[in-house]
């Protein structure tokens, strides 16, 4: 153990004295948390994220005007009244999400919401079909609201009620959504920074020298792993404490959170150990490290939000330790649920970490042959 502590102390000292390395470990995850937090704050405010729709009124009747005014008041979309050609040009350039065309004769059909005739057309980019359907629903709702006011029909909207999932006490805040991702970015930065250290030792010749000492290869790698784990747990605790104390992030289960942290940092330490043996030069290890970790992060849901991922990509993401980490942290912080909800991801993280650590030690040992 003394040998491991000596090597870990040396590696931590070297990292702390390297300002560029410190940025990736300490500053980068905080920058990311602030950036993503700002994005999600705007998301929750919704105004900036409302769909931008061009509206072209070809009917120009008093009835169509009343309908447009109602749409403008609802605030569900940012509506820009435009000539049809201008709207189509802006749609093609990506400036608009969709174009709504009120067809001539719309005002003459007061019960158009019953589907008696086509009175509107939604033109959308082929890649934005989901948004087009959303716009269609909002247009129908606006028409229906008028009919309900005029007592032409009863309100069918009361037949459907949207509620939150039973396990959730309240809607997660932007800080609660961002915190697990920020922790994972911190761990990715740590793992990538420490992975390079073994290649640096190869280049400087110090690894050859360490191997001539009365210590085994696994001790060299374990010492580095201990340094990486110490840095990982420190960064994760700093981010979590900041989130809990200053941003009001809820904590559903303290024991769960501690288990999640321990297993998550162990997993990323193992990944670091495996990556560190992947190449001979710092460049190749850095490339392999960031490449691997960014892909894991991308499919895991900390780079691209899961809500906008296609289903196949979201399914693949279940294989990423980043996703397991997100689930473990979200369940122990704000999502709640049963113990198994966070224990299973934690078990997967520990198993993967152990495999990676053993694999790294095996590769390092083989390199002496």
């Amino acid at each position, binding site marked *: 153990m003394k040998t491991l502590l000596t090597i870990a102390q040396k590696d931590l*000292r070297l990292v702390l004295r390297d300002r560029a390395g410190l940025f990736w470990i300490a500053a980068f995850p905080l920058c990311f948390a602030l950036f993503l937090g700002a994005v999600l704050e705007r998301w929750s405010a919704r105004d900036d994220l409302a769909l931008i729709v061009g509206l072209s009124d070809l009917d120009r009747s008093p009835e169509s005007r009343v309908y447009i005014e109602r749409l403008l008041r609802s605030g569900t979309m940012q509506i820009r009244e435009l000539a049809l050609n201008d709207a189509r040009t802006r749609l093609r350039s990506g400036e608009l999400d969709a174009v709504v065309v009120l067809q001539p004769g719309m005002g003459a059909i007061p019960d158009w919401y019953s589907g008696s005739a086509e009175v509107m057309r939604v033109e959308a980019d082929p890649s934005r079909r989901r948004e087009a359907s959303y716009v269609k629903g909002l247009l129908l709702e606006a028409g229906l609201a008028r009919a309900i006011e005029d007592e032409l029909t009863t309100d069918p909207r009361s037949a459907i009620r949207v509620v939150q999932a039973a396990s959730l006490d309240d809607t997660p805040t932007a800080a609660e959504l961002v915190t697990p991702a920020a922790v994972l970015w911190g761990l990715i930065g740590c793992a990538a920074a420490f992975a390079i250290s073994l290649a640096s030792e190869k280049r400087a010749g110090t690894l050859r*020298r360490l191997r*001539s000492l009365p210590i085994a290869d696994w001790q060299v790698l374990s010492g580095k792993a201990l340094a990486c784990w110490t840095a990982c747990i420190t960064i994760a605790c700093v981010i979590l404490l900041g989130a809990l104390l200053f941003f009001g992030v809820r904590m559903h289960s303290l024991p769960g959170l501690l288990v999640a942290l321990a297993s998550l940092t162990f997993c990323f330490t193992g990944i670091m150990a495996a990556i560190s043996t992947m190449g001979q030069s710092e460049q190749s290890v850095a490339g392999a490290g960031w490449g691997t970790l960014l892909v894991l992060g991308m499919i895991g849901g900390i780079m691209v939000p899961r809500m906008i991922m296609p289903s196949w990509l979201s399914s693949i993401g279940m294989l990423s330790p980043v996703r397991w980490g997100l689930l473990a942290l979200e369940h122990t912080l704000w999502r709640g649920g049963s113990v198994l909800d966070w224990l299973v991801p934690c078990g997967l993280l520990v198993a993967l970490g152990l495999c990676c650590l053993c694999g790294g030690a095996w590769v390092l040992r083989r390199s002496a042959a």
Partner: protein
Amino acid sequence: MPDNPLARQPSASTSADASCVLEARHLHKSYGAHKVVDDVSLRVAAGEGLLLLGPNGSGKTTLLSLLAGVLRADSGEALACGKPTSEPRARAALALVPQHPAVYDGLTGGENVALFGKLHGLSGAALSAGVESALLAAELWKIRDQRASAYSGGMRRRLSLACALVHAPRLLLLDEPFEGVDDVSRAHLLEVLTASKQRGVALVLSTHRIDEVRALCERFTMLREGRVVCERAVDSELGHGPSDEPRDEAGHNALYNARDGA
């Protein structure tokens, strides 16, 4: 502060044959089909110096790595004080000084030496004494708090040697120790190595500067393509003129090849 930093005795041997510090038996090492070390055997006694000669690519560095336990031999074994150097504990008796000064630039001179002392199991007063002795021997004591990145090439070479001396090894394996070193540093390194040898430390070193290590080595072993082609006493074979230079079994001039890196 110790009276004489070079006067510390090497750590005690646990071997039955105390006079034999290093023994290599039929070492073989290949990378694919290329034989780098081919059936090399040698013995070095306490206080003895062995010079490894040979042109570039003849296998000197690989042989030193095998002797130090850094690389695993395909067959054969290297013993330090009677124990195979492939076992970590056996390596406590030896120290490897690589060709390029393998020190941590981000650590100070003192931290570098202390690190290797700790990894050799030293602690407390023994560690402090070892660090002080090694740094004084390398004449780096006054600048021990500066980072190694601020050291000159010669200083880094001396620091590398200090890291090797911190645990008072019984065997020093030196790979081209005088490469890229100025005259002043070279003279100092020679002085440190001579003092170590006089205290009974066995030396195995590879170098192209044969004239400078004459005082350190009693015997030389010449390698070509991984094989030992000549093994003789230095005094009888290494003269000052070209006619005195050693020749291998095929009659090639060993020193000429070594100097030119042929």
